[in-house]
């Protein structure tokens, strides 16, 4: 087996040194009844080329996003990832390192995390950020629990504009920890009055910006109302590129910002691994979950970085930790950071402008299709359309016609909730005018 270094002679020599007659002597503590199980359907070792061939048969049954006009978003976005990013994250010293528990020989990872935290804080307009979370949805749920710890209250009000699966995750985690959630009805029109729902028990209001349906709104008035009631504003996002164009939540009074960083540096990969971003006001840092890199000096007075404030974490605090989270999303955070470094402010602004311009063009093209309405007044690179018919069926037929035409809202919200004719569609810098035309033509065809 090509990954196992020992020769049979090595094994025999080592067993002799240990003083064991056979390898099974070392497994003698396994109860006799459970030894030597019989397995079904697990073939023996294969050559590298045989494995490659077998895995390709799975990959070949999928339609890659790059192979068709592509408009699917709703929480994951197809952006270009510069070749440099994928090269750097495959450097052995990044990819095959562990969590930097020995900082003297992990300064590479630690400095990257410190830079990442700064990039995320500045992108979202906040003061601090952690070293990343699993993904946007888990970051959002952790943000809610964090708000509960800060306010010592337990009720979250979740906007109907939050991604339905993010709402489900917040719901599951809250229910499990005994906290009530006030889920406002789905808000495809972007008209809800969330401030009206705030009361004296409210720990936080959770608002997505841009919303799941694409709408933009000034979070300032919601923040003001929340703060008056002693509650926090948790701003959620799924499209990090948006903050190259729009005012970040931090500049509109958000206390905690949680979202998905996949858009910057990370491929779609069917939903993961992604990178959750979590940023907050500096005064709340001790209630933050997850790892944090911090600056310090070494014994010779040179600047260096370490994981810090670990007394919040499970390996020290055990059942009194801020969260059970152990891992972060290190390599995806690195990808985010490298891409962000390549972009810089200037590149990010240009990338965001390109996304918005392409989405505006797409909206105009689709609005011209008979029977199709664009619901949004405002949007960044994603918006909602109403179609004449069942959205899920239409999206399926679009796929048959070779167009991946967005996400039917009913797929996430369930059917029969008055949302069955809505599709969320996205454009990015990779969307061409020809793609738009192909989408419009196919949509006209399948809805006529």
């Amino acid at each position, binding site marked *: 087996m090509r*990954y196992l*270094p*020992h020769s049979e002679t090595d094994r025999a020599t080592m067993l002799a*040194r240990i003083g064991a007659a056979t390898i099974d002597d*070392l497994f003698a503590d*396994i*109860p006799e009844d*459970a*030894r030597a199980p019989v397995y079904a359907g697990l073939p023996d*070792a*294969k050559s590298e080329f045989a494995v490659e061939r077998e*895995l*390709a048969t*799975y990959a*070949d*049954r*999928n*339609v*890659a996003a790059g192979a068709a006009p592509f408009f699917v978003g709703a929480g994951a976005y197809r952006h270009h990832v510069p070749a440099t990013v994928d*090269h750097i994250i495959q450097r052995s010293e990044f*990819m*095959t*390192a*562990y*969590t*930097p528990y020995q900082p*003297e020989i*992990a300064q590479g*990872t630690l*400095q990257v995390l410190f830079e990442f935290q*700064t990039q995320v804080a500045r*992108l979202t307009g906040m003061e601090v950020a952690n070293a990343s979370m*699993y993904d946007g949805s888990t970051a959002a749920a952790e943000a809610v629990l964090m708000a509960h710890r800060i306010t010592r209250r337990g009720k979250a009000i979740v906007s109907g504009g939050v991604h339905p699966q993010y709402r489900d*995750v917040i*719901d*599951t985690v809250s229910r499990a920890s*005994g906290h009530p959630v006030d889920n406002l009805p789905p808000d495809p029109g972007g008209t809800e009055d969330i401030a009206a729902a705030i009361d004296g028990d409210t720990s936080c209001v959770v608002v997505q910006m841009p919303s799941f349906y694409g709408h933009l709104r000034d979070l300032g008035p919601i923040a003001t109302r929340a703060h008056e009631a002693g509650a926090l504003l948790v701003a959620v996002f799924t499209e990090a590129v948006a903050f190259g164009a*729009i005012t*970040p939540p931090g500049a509109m009074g958000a206390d905690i910002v949680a979202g998905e960083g996949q858009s910057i540096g990370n491929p779609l990969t*069917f939903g*993961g*691994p992604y990178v959750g971003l979590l940023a907050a006001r500096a005064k709340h840092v001790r209630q933050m979950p997850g790892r944090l890199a*911090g600056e*310090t000096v070494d014994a010779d007075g040179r600047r*260096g970085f370490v994981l*810090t404030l670990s007394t919040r974490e499970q390996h020290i605090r055990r*059942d009194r930790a801020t969260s059970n989270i*152990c891992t*972060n999303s290190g390599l*995806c955070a*690195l990808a985010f950071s490298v891409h962000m*470094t390549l972009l*810089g*402010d200037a590149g*990010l602004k240009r*990338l965001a402008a390109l996304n918005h311009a392409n989405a*505006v*063009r797409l909206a105009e093209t689709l609005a011209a299709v008979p029977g199709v309405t664009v619901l949004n007044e405002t949007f960044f690179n994603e918006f909602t359309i109403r179609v004449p018919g069942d959205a899920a069926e239409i999206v399926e037929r679009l796929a048959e016609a070779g167009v991946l035409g967005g996400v039917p809202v009913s*797929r996430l919200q*369930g059917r029969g909730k008055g949302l069955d004719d809505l599709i969320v569609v996205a454009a990015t810098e990779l969307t061409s005018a020809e793609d738009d035309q192909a989408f419009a033509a196919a949509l006209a065809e399948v809805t006529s």
Partner: protein
Amino acid sequence: MKGDLGRPTQPDAERSGEAPPTFTGNRGLQIEEPLIYEIGRGDVSGVDLPDPPKVAARLGGLERADPPGNPGLSEPETMRHYVRLSQKNYAIDSGIFPLGSCTMKHNPRLNEKTARLPGFADIHPLQPQSTVEGGIALIAELGRRLTELTGMAAVAMSPRAGAHGELCGMLAIKAALEAAGETRSVVLVPDSAHGTNPATAATLGYDIVEVPARPDGTVDPAAVRERLNDTVAAIMLTNPNTAGLFERDVIAIAEAVHAAGAYFYADGANFNAIVGKARPGDLGVDAMHINLHKTFSTPHGGGGPGSGPVVLSEALAPFAPLPFVHVAAGVPRLVETDDDAPAGAHPFGRLTAFHGQMGMFVRAMAYMLSHGLDGMRQASEDAVLNANYVRACLSDLMSQPYGDRTCMHEVLFDDAFLKDSGVTTLDFAKALIDEGFHPMTVYFPLVVHGAMLIEPTESESKASLDLFVASLRDLALRVGRGEVDRFRQAPRLAPRSRLDETRAARKPVLTYTAPESYRSAAE
């Protein structure tokens, strides 16, 4: 050529000496690297993008007023920045990474290559299912293999890391108890458990009751029975445990737990020791997460991403979270909402958006296919062989908390052999850095004084282990000779000497702020 003890070369004592300080602070190939905030510029970008077409903006007057303040670097500057940083990291590809409990095994590059096939890397989680049949089939097949290897009934694939898997398994247990009309408030956790176990149980509102280990380092079924009653929801047990020992009474423990109406959650962090040798399902386990980044070699990446599928017993299977793959008439389909769930399924909710860590699934699948059942069994055997070899080579010089007995994939030492020497476990670990090794896990498990937990994994050759144990022996002998400074001042040869963690925590600096002088000059 190789000299004694497997050392490649030795410097000539006459000619070697302290390297002189340099003007740059660099030391040969060790190059100092500033922060991007110190070398980047706001108007530089390493990405060329076309001019955005002119459109009437629909941003509702919410245009960003001030740039974020993240400077850019050109592509060559970017490469250099990250390559220099990477050179300050130790990695498995550089040498043995014997972190106990962490399982730093080789990361095959075939896994990376296949995960990057466009049919995996460039598919969207919400494309129509008809366009991702291969992706769904792969999740189904990986899940089937995991249930087969563990002897369990079902698997939840979506948890994004080990601790996320713990949450999943414990939520399934909670849901099963609730469905039976029971509310139970206590979770039993051995004192040697990973910190995530009590943290997970506490997250779900459970009270933790600790189970102490008996003198041989394993859990006594009698101690479990004493603590069992109708308020106990579950026991969370790691097997092999964090002392590297197989819980030989695991079946008796499982029986007692089940008799009390509670469930057996197994922390699968150490499953890599027994793949192909024993199945958790045969040991009475009801739920167990599997760290794909440990057992199935998906890269640790400097701290993630992980992946933590959870295998479930027949009793817990109906409560698996959304989404899950349901195979009907041989065709796998993703069930994403409650409306869509087949009869008999009562998902406890959803733990994450989308379907889990697909990129890790492909890598784990490549590992399984490459090894095959025979290779996976051999890997477990070699991992256990290597740990016992290290034990046998060090047992005369380093102390073991539970006596010199056969271990599984990792061997645990304590600091009794350092007693009164003036050298701590931390000092000892840092001295290993100067010798060119990543230290073992230190101070874990917490119940063992000055713990040092060594997990070599199956990826190490005999030659690699021989040099490692020879170095440890040399260090242990130096402790005996009273060479205290060598340890207290270590590391001297790494990119940084010992870092001041107290200072970092006292006044945390978590983001970059330009120094005052720099800012006033810019104004």
